[in-house]
């Protein structure tokens, strides 16, 4: 939630004035708390919605765009892929294990609330500098927490990303994405219907978890201050797993009219959203809410963020069967109210009215700001003197340091093989998860390059989408749609707002050009400490489809005697490159420009070649450029390779981060090159496989064993404190 001001329970003065006008009286404490929660940045998207509306959200495959718990796209065979990404940045900074764990729990709920069985989790992590005093502890806790929840519920964590930068010292980012599969014609939604229908609470009991600290500190509530002190949310993945099974079991019947998980602002926002979407009212008896502790106030019950809870509207007569399902799974079940035709939310506790608020006006009347913003000035060109330093020495630095080192230490703590459908787990481009019981698969990835976004938000926004699209393409998948998690600093600062606006502009363009609508997402603002904002980090999570798992590829080189073909144009763009940052220690220059037409042309070409079975291995070029990609492919395949630098300036040719490029291992290069020429796609043969070393022609070489040790050593050594 946003950082509320001191007065009016967190509302701005003009927002409070609007409350007075809407009610025609002063709100009581509970009502004020509800307004503050519903109109918080987190729940109302007041700073961002003007811009979110500019993103493309529709397409022939879209079954559900933004606005529900998760987005959904048609994946054929009568099935839908349901997915969304969400942040748990602030809670993870306060308590890394529980913050990350509850982040995973929350995003899983968003997905199974739609009627989908969760099949995969991804995570995008941003930590501060490795040598910052808090980073090690935070990283260890966050990774353990993500694993702790996902492993226990038995949903494989198949991919993600992780990077470090001092801008995250005071604000780490923990974004989790969940993907599920549902029958396409049985998606569940949250709009309440049927006056008189039961409003039902299921899951865990309500405690004083996560009630917003700053709101709690407001003048009205400091009576029993100690007792009311909010507590950190603790995840209970065991109950989470039971809740998944119980909900999916009940969803197999026709008992449910509408369902909504209790996420941020708990019962308040779930009840409000269900009623307002259905144009109805709701009357709740708070005494019936299952409570973990004695003496909880109406305010606490309404604003608790206890985990593993859901709200449902049931069909008349469905209550008994539903209760039996939840009892069988050992979960709470309580009818806590009814839908009404009054259009109001009426709460009672201990037989007395506790709140009475109009639903539609509160929902529709939520503030929307057109925050002032300034466009990020173009980054001056970085002068990089061309020289012929040894590219292999630079490779050692990049691959053996925090930016380029293997993330194995992270993903080995995640069960990525449970559910028996992980065809491609972490360590490749996109992860590939089989659609259970079929020969088809989903390709999944998450990407963002914040250092590009900082230098040029529009290019950075474009690039995040393009890289995600490329990762899907690199395994042979057809990109379907994306979700996003927009992590930025304080939107009340025009520079930050300018970054936000720029990134969205770039993302929207790329989504249109690459035909991937945004079907869900999340915005996390105010990620800053003492006026220092995080790097603009619009993480893109993308989902693609493989119609035939046999026609896919991975990045492992297949063996000796295969040609390496570079697809896409190499200009040697070193501005904002990993090389410039890690080898030269300079964060300078504009990021590489993204040519969306070239992305599309090159990607469509590569995908067609993969599907035709002409590609033995493929890796898209991103962070670190060509030589890093070649090294990763050689390590994955356990076979060496020799590479000819594509430019005279070897460093620029090997480390430039020009976009829209792929490195392919192919049996018949002439054939592929001919086809590329016919399609207008730049491609050239730049080397071949063999031996047990990676060699740069005209320079030096490094054995795979040494390369592997370098690549694998950094992260475990760092965590161990070395």
């Amino acid at each position: 939630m946003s950082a509320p001001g001191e007065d009016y329970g967190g509302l701005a003065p003009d927002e409070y004035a609007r409350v007075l006008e809407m009610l025609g009286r002063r709100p009581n404490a509970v009502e004020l708390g509800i307004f503050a929660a519903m109109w918080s940045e987190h729940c109302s998207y007041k700073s961002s919605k003007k811009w979110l509306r500019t993103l493309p959200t529709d397409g022939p495959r879209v079954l559900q765009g933004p606005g529900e718990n998760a987005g959904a796209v048609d994946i054929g065979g009568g099935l839908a892929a349901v997915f969304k990404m969400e942040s748990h940045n602030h809670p993870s900074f306060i308590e890394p294990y529980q913050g990350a764990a509850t982040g995973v729990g929350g995003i899983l709920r968003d997905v199974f609330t739609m009627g989908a069985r969760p099949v995969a989790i991804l995570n995008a992590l941003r930590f501060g500098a490795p040598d910052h005093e808090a980073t090690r502890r935070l990283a260890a806790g966050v990774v353990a927490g993500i694993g702790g929840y996902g492993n226990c519920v038995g949903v494989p964590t198949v991919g993600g990303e992780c990077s470090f930068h001092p801008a995250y010292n005071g604000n780490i980012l923990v974004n989790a994405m969940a993907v599920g599969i549902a029958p396409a014609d049985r998606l569940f939604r949250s709009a309440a219907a049927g006056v008189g229908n039961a409003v039902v609470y299921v899951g865990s009991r309500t405690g004083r978890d996560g009630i917003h600290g700053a709101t709690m500190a407001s003048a009205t509530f400091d009576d029993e201050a100690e007792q009311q002190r909010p507590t950190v949310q603790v995840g209970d993945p065991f109950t989470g797993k039971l809740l998944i099974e119980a909900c999916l079991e009940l969803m197999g019947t026709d008992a449910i009219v509408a369902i909504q998980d209790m996420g941020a602002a708990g019962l308040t926002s779930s009840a409000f959203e269900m009623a307002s979407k259905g144009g109805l009212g709701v009357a709740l008896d708070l005494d019936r809410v299952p409570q973990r502790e004695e003496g909880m106030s109406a305010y606490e019950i309404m604003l608790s963020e206890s985990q593993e809870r859901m709200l449902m509207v049931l069909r008349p007569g469905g209550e008994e069967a539903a209760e039996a399902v939840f009892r069988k799974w050992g979960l709470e079940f309580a009818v806590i109210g009814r839908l009404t035709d009054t259009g109001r939310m009426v709460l009672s506790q201990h037989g007395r009215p506790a709140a009475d608020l109009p639903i539609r006006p509160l929902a529709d009347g939520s503030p929307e700001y057109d925050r002032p913003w300034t466009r990020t000035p173009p980054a001056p060109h970085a002068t990089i003197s061309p020289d012929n330093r040894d590219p292999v020495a630079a490779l050692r630095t990049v691959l053996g340091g925090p930016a380029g080192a293997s993330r194995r230490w992270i993903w080995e703590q995640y069960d990525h093989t449970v559910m028996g459908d992980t065809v491609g787990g972490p360590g490749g481009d996109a992860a590939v998860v089989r659609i259970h019981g079929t020969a088809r698969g989903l390709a999944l990835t998450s990407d963002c390059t914040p250092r590009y976004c900082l230098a040029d938000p529009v290019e950075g926004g474009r690039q995040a989408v393009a890289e995600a699209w490329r990762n899907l393409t690199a395994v042979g998948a057809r990109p379907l749609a994306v979700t996003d998690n927009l992590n930025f600093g304080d939107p009340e600062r025009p520079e930050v707002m300018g970054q936000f606006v720029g990134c969205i502009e770039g993302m929207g363009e790329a989504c249109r050009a690459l035909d991937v609508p945004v079907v869900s997402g999340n915005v996390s603002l105010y990620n800053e400490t003492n006026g220092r904002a995080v790097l603009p980090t619009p993480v893109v999570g993308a989902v693609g489809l493989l119609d035939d798992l046999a026609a896919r590829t991975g990045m492992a080189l297949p063996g000796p005697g295969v040609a390496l073909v570079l697809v896409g144009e190499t200009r040697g763009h070193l501005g904002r490159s990993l090389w410039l940052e890690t080898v030269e220690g300079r964060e300078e220059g504009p990021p590489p420009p993204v040519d969306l037409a070239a992305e599309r042309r090159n990607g469509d070409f590569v995908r067609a070649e993969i599907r035709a079975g002409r590609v033995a291995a493929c890796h898209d070029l991103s962070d670190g450029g060509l030589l890093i990609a070649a090294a990763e492919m050689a390590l994955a395949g356990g076979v060496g390779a020799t590479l000819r630098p594509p430019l005279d300036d070897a460093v620029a040719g090997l480390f430039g981060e020009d976009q829209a490029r792929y490195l392919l291992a192919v049996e018949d290069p002439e054939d592929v090159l001919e086809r590329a020429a016919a399609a207008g796609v730049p491609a050239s043969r730049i080397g071949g496989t063999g031996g047990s070393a990676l060699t740069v022609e005209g320079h030096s070489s490094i054995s795979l064993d040494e390369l592997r040790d370098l690549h694998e050593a950094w992260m475990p050594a760092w965590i161990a404190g070395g």
Partner: protein
Amino acid sequence: MKAVVIVFPGSNCDRDARVALEAATGRPAAMVWHGDPDLPPADLVVLPGGFSYGDYLRPGAMASRSPVMQAVIRAARRGVRVLGICNGFQVLTECGLLPGALLRNAGLRFVCRPVTLRVETADSAFTGGYRPGDALRMPVAHHDGNYFADAGTLERLAGEDRIAFRYLDNPNGSAGDIAGILNGDRNVLGMMPHPERAADALLGGTDGRALFESLAA
């Protein structure tokens, strides 16, 4: 062969086990809820992987006390084969069908990675499809797989040829690199690695398949 898979609250490899069993036997496997006091007639009972009861208190502790386990113990005593994988192994040691205990991994972290196992004995219905010395690749995925037993027990296990598998690359600190053990009657096997996740070429290996096939034979 009639196989039964027990579902505890928090089991999460129950479906995976069923898929592998059905592929090997060509017959549907029955899923039995932990609260059932009885088992349907079966030749094989599988206790699947997962986090029964969240692994709270001790992994497998609460599951080993569920109603269905009394029936499983009786069946095992009658000679019905019982296979415990991962959390199922933990349940088997907790209920006393197998000796020893599974402690927290020596590295204190959850570990999910492919490991290499050496088949130590082919003398059981589970391992009859392998030869002693065979090296098998299959994944582990656990937080508490560090096998412990007192010296006497370890000696007896080895002396009675009851060590089914040892790790060649011990991922968790297990005593004697033990990855799986048999009971004295050789009809109960507990193992930490997941053979059901290594029974499909698409998922990167089929070394686990022979275990299910030899049970089905």
